């Protein structure tokens, strides 16, 4: 029998935290974790092949720029027109941050309150599900009619998209009642408020972070979508504007910026999760 034939050891080694039971939470344990120089090299190599390949294919088949611009043209547009796009990034961020903040706070408070009253939760949950499943973009034309072409309808739309996502995930977290841990706190004479802050909230934290991450991504989608519907500013507005003027390199430069924004949101929550919710995994 050879040395490496001891199954217990080989299987124990393969556990790198990627087989976490709750799929939502695995986002915090697996994901971007760069290990060695070889891996970095491979990642760069693949990127060169993909981007270079696209450049080559587009040039080779003479694909016109109004159908698909070359990566190099997109990169050029990203650099040369960045000063034109930058203010619009600012507008979108204002909408996203304020809408998300409003939605997240309302969602968190509602989740914390509702889970304390099972009956209320039963009555309210269908409506929350309705809010989660309805694309809030559908309401944007109506909101514009009521509030005009400024920030207001967009911020409301972002809050409506992010809030229910935060709430439904946070509620799942707050529902994870561990009677033993609550009894422990009570045995030292903890008040209801202390039990909430010292036991329920930390227990719910991993799920709250999942909710915040999904909510902010949905908020970004909704903000850009709302900008495409109407109003003269924001990254979504740039998309419609550039495409109507067939400025495809600029159009894709905005798309690239949105991807970067989405990735930054993900990395931010991944980092927070690693720092504050790693005990879960």
């Amino acid at each position: 029998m050879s040395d490496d034939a001891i199954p217990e050891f080989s299987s124990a080694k393969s556990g790198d935290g990627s087989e976490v039971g709750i799929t939502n939470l695995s986002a915090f344990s697996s994901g971007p974790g760069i290990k060695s120089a070889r891996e970095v090299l491979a990642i760069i190599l693949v990127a060169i092949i993909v981007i270079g390949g696209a450049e080559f294919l587009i040039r080779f088949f003479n694909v016109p720029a109004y159908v698909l611009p070359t990566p190099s043209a997109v990169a050029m547009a990203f650099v040369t027109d960045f000063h034109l796009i930058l203010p619009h990034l600012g507008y979108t961020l204002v909408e996203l941050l304020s809408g998300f903040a409003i939605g997240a706070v309302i969602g968190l408070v509602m989740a914390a309150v509702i889970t304390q009253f099972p009956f209320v939760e039963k009555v309210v949950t269908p409506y929350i599900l309705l809010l989660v499943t309805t694309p809030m973009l559908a309401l944007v034309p109506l909101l514009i009619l009521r509030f005009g072409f400024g920030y207001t309808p967009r911020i409301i739309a972002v809050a409506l998209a992010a809030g229910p996502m935060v709430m439904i995930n946070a509620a799942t977290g707050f529902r994870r009642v561990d009677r033993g841990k609550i009894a422990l706190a009570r045995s030292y004479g903890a008040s209801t408020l202390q039990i909430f802050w010292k036991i329920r909230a930390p227990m719910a934290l991993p799920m709250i972070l999942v909710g915040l991450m999904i909510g902010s991504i949905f908020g970004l989608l909704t903000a850009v979508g709302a900008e495409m519907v109407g109003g003269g500013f924001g990254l979504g507005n740039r998309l419609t504007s550039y495409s109507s003027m067939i400025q495809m390199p600029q159009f894709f430069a905005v798309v690239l910026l949105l991807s970067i924004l989405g990735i930054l949101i993900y990395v931010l929550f991944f980092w927070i999760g690693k720092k504050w919710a790693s005990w879960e995994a």
Partner: protein
Amino acid sequence: MTGLGSTMPKLRVRGATKVYETRSGDLLALDRCSLDVMPGEIVSIVGPSGCGKTTLLWSMSGLHGLTGGEVLLDGKAITGPNPAIGMVFQEANLLPWRNLDSNIHFPFEIKREKPDREWIASLVSRVGLDGFGGRFPRELSGGMQQRAALVRALSFKPSVLLMDEPFGALDSFTREEMNHLVEEIWMDTRTTIVLITHSIEEAIFLSDRVVVLSPRPGRVANIYEVPFPRPRSMEIMATKEVFDLQNAIKREIVGEQKSRYAALQALPDAIPAPTH
């Protein structure tokens, strides 16, 4: 160990009765249990599963109310969680998002008191957890976790320590180690301890008296004195007296179950046969 003036029981359970309301009707879990625990005494409660041991202990801690009867601590009725009572739960029940130090300081955080750092440090090194303060519970073995839980329960110098099957989840070696640790700490502090256990051996090793509860509804079926000197060495634990006591208690528990079974067997005769 009954010193001068300590003739008053530390804990006094009088006619403790508990009825749980369930969907299928009321369930009598405890039926007029009475028990006195003297200061500095270690009392174990044993009995078949579901006999109301945990219900009895939790009502002593003030975490659960009673349907009837009362629990007195130093002569005063317990109506809710009491700062003089420390509790050790099944499993270690540490908070996984806190490191060991922070877990041990948790009671003080809730009570809004300053921890006695010297006392805690002495407890930590006594249970062999020096240098583990920054570790998180998931990084520690079950035995280490339960030791930390023991430190947490003793950190605020409770006059009564209630232990709810504290070592049931540990392997038998670790369990024996923990028993020695409890004995050692008790020799120092003389804290009054009430312990629930499934292990008769553990009950005899640790206790001055072993209380046997009957199957549900829990009643005090018998109380056995454990007269062996401490510390209880392996030699003492291997004597015939210990063995006889162990058997007597085991027979008591099994016998209670048997007579219950016999009663159930006899039952059909009393019920009129269904007519078809």
